[in-house]
């Protein structure tokens, strides 16, 4: 029966080409606009690491001293001081724990005749790679001994390996950062994490940095790039030396930790609170004791990562879809009005009202489906346009996944039937006698 109705629907569409075309185009326009904006919003607000994002926490402690007024007292910066970071890293409660910072430096393959280029380098600790399950093409991340000895090792992304080593297995080769040589210990496979929650807020929708190196090496080499981190000091450092900066109350290091369950989380929270009390006994942390473990999801929403514009755009596009559908509904009325004769005839030869409703629903579902397909095409065009408009964001944000494609088609079919409900019911309520007379 279903295939028969589909066949009838096709015949009916062909009989009123202009009307059908308008209906399909209206649905396609509405769906296209909605899905374009929705895709961007969805991709922006997606879970960066679904397998374990609930267990990943930003470790935040309030190290600010007495007399420091912050009108937003409940929030503490996600960065901490060097001394606190080093002390907290000693805890073995978290399964993995990584410091996050960044530097910018000149990079060059010393074996090649090539000019140096400037690159941003992620400085972190060994746990970063297993914690985020970063895929490796060659070699692997450095280990904890490299961290504690401040070894001069680097991990490259696939792109960086392509740039500096022409994509060959570069494990064991040297790379020059600034004036020093670093040994390549690992090369990543294609790796993208969206949003890139662990770094700077303004770079969450960009590629991971090209090069990774141990944070301890950054400190021992005394390389600092203030423009890549948030530094805030409630008290200036004693003097201008690096040692004074490291001992200062300036917060600039992020820590992310993986805590597998609530028990671990409570343990770690207790550890932090004890630590803060210790520090208070030593005359620091005069303000108060406030330590937080903020999950990835909460972190992203607190830091307002998804721009509000993008949410508003989804709402406006949804309203646009409704206007298109209302419009379409009017056209459906017109269409079914012209089909009263056919409906009457079918009723006369024995079709029940339910049959008619089924037939008309299939017809609208077919219209909706075709509209959905065209809508998908329009949405692809829309996404290309968005990629150009938002060229500073990562282009993977502007791509639909299979789920969204299926959801789009389903949405198109369902809404056409929902908005067609009244016209269908009206058309199926045809009076037999009046229609048969005129035939």
């Amino acid at each position: 029966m279903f295939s028969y109705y589909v066949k009838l629907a096709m015949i009916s569409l062909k009989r009123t080409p202009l009307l059908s075309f308008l209906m399909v185009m209206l649905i396609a326009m509405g769906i296209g606009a909605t899905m374009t904006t929705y895709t961007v919003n969805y991709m922006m607000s997606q879970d960066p690491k679904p397998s374990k994002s609930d267990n990943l926490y930003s470790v935040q402690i309030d190290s600010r001293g007495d007399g420091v007024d912050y009108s937003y007292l409940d929030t503490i910066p996600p960065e901490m001081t060097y001394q606190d970071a080093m002390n907290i890293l000693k805890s073995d409660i978290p399964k993995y724990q990584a410091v996050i910072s960044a530097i910018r430096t000149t990079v060059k393959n010393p074996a090649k005749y090539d000019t140096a280029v400037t690159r941003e380098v992620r400085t972190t600790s060994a746990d970063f790679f297993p914690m985020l399950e970063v895929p490796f093409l060659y070699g692997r991340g450095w280990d904890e001994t490299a961290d504690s000895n401040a070894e001069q090792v680097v991990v490259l992304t696939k792109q960086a390996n392509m740039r500096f080593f022409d994509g060959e297995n570069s494990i064991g080769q040297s790379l020059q950062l600034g004036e020093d040589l670093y040994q390549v210990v690992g090369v990543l496979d294609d790796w993208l994490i969206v949003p890139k929650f662990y770094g700077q807020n303004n770079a969450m929708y960009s590629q991971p940095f090209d090069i990774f190196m141990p944070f301890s090496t950054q400190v021992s080499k005394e390389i600092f790039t203030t423009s890549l981190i948030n530094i805030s000091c409630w008290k200036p450092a004693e003097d201008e030396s690096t040692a004074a900066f490291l001992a200062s109350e300036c917060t600039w290091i992020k820590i992310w930790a993986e805590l597998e369950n609530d028990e671990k989380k409570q343990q770690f929270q207790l550890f932090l609170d004890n630590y803060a009390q210790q520090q208070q006994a030593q005359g620091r942390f005069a303000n108060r004791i406030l330590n937080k473990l903020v999950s990835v999801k909460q972190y992203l929403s607190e830091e307002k990562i998804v721009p509000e514009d993008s949410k508003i755009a989804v709402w406006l596009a949804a309203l646009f879809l409704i206007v298109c559908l209302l419009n379409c509904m009017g056209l459906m009325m017109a269409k079914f009005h012209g089909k009263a004769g056919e409906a009457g005839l079918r009723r006369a030869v024995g079709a029940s009202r339910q049959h008619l409703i089924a037939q008309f629903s299939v017809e609208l579902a077919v219209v909706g489906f075709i509209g959905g397909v065209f809508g998908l095409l329009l949405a692809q065009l829309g996404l290309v346009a968005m990629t150009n408009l938002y060229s500073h964001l990562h282009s993977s944000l502007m791509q639909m996944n299979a789920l969204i494609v299926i959801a789009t088609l389903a949405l198109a079919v369902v809404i056409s039937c929902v908005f067609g409900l009244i016209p269908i019911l009206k058309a199926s309520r045809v009076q037999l006698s009046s229609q048969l007379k005129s035939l």
Partner: protein
Amino acid sequence: MKDLAPIIKALFKEKLVPFLLILQISVTFMVMVNAANMISEREKLMSRPTGVDEENAFYVLTNLQGPSEKFVANLSHDLASLRAIEGVQVVSPLNGVPLGLWGNYVSVYRNLDDEYPIDNAGYYGSDEHIVENLGLNLIAGENLALSDTTVSMTGNHNISSSILITKAFAELVSPDDWRQAVGQTIYTTNTPQRIKGIVEAMQGAWPRWYGVNGSIIYPVIEVDNTIRYFVRAEPGQLENVMEEVNKVLLNTPGRVIEKMQTMEEVRLRAYKDDNASSKLLISVCVGLLFATSLGIYGQARFSVNRRKRQIGTRRALGASKGQVMRFFMLENAVVSLTGLVIGFIAALSLSEQFAQHFGLTPVPLPYLLSGMAALFVLGQLSVSYPALQASRVEPAIATRSA
């Protein structure tokens, strides 16, 4: 006008179709007016002056060759060679650029032991040429002098100096009369700073920051392994000067030029999101208007086709072409006005919601009124062709059997 009663009667009899059209018009109106408001808000935001002579200015971000004892000497060498380039008006080191998206801010206190700051202000560190370099407008007090300038090897902003502040910040320092701020001493990072002059405007680094218009300029050159030179070229010389600056800088061995950006590019980048969403909003509006006028046209055509016999009968009974046309125009006017009145209320409540959740300003009345007028005209235009067709129906059709 005597057609009005039968039109309303007919609309009530139809119910669904006119109701759909009314709903459609009201939603269109609601979205359009709010979108237009959002676009104009953005325009206002983007048109605030940075205070900089944007047309002729650019900056270059580069490195100073180490070791650190040589930074200052290298800086002086760079500045001297850049200033010697033909077409360069002024060059200064500058720690950040207005709207550059990266910068510093400081909390400013009236007295040393105050609990609450006056407010936060954008922080700029440069030398005594800064006013001339950026093309700032000094409106009170004195300009910085060579003797004011100091050099700092770290970003610790605890050097006492004579500073310039923007008018917006002077109004916070001295709320009664901003001119009185000149000569006052304020405290940043526990260090006294004397206000030497006031410039009209110099925006901070972040366009969306509440304190973007309040900035402080310190005559403190921060020396680091990276340095930013801000260059103002003679009018019309920008491209040549940029090329020349690039060449001159690269004469130093070990030089890496990280970035070179004109102020116009900085502005474009800073407002990229805003520009993009304005364009998105405009396309939604265009789509909406298109869909709505299509709807009005389609409905009118449909109803003309259905009422052909009625129209013929009216014509046969003596109605003129104009009367028939007027009938359809009036019908559309009734539907449009109803939709617009509902849309007016809906637009106000949506604007209320936006104001609450997203902090947008409510839609002003002139927008609502001109939006209504525009949609009304659009409706009349859309209906005019089907109405014209209706007026061309032959009276003879009434005599034919259906």
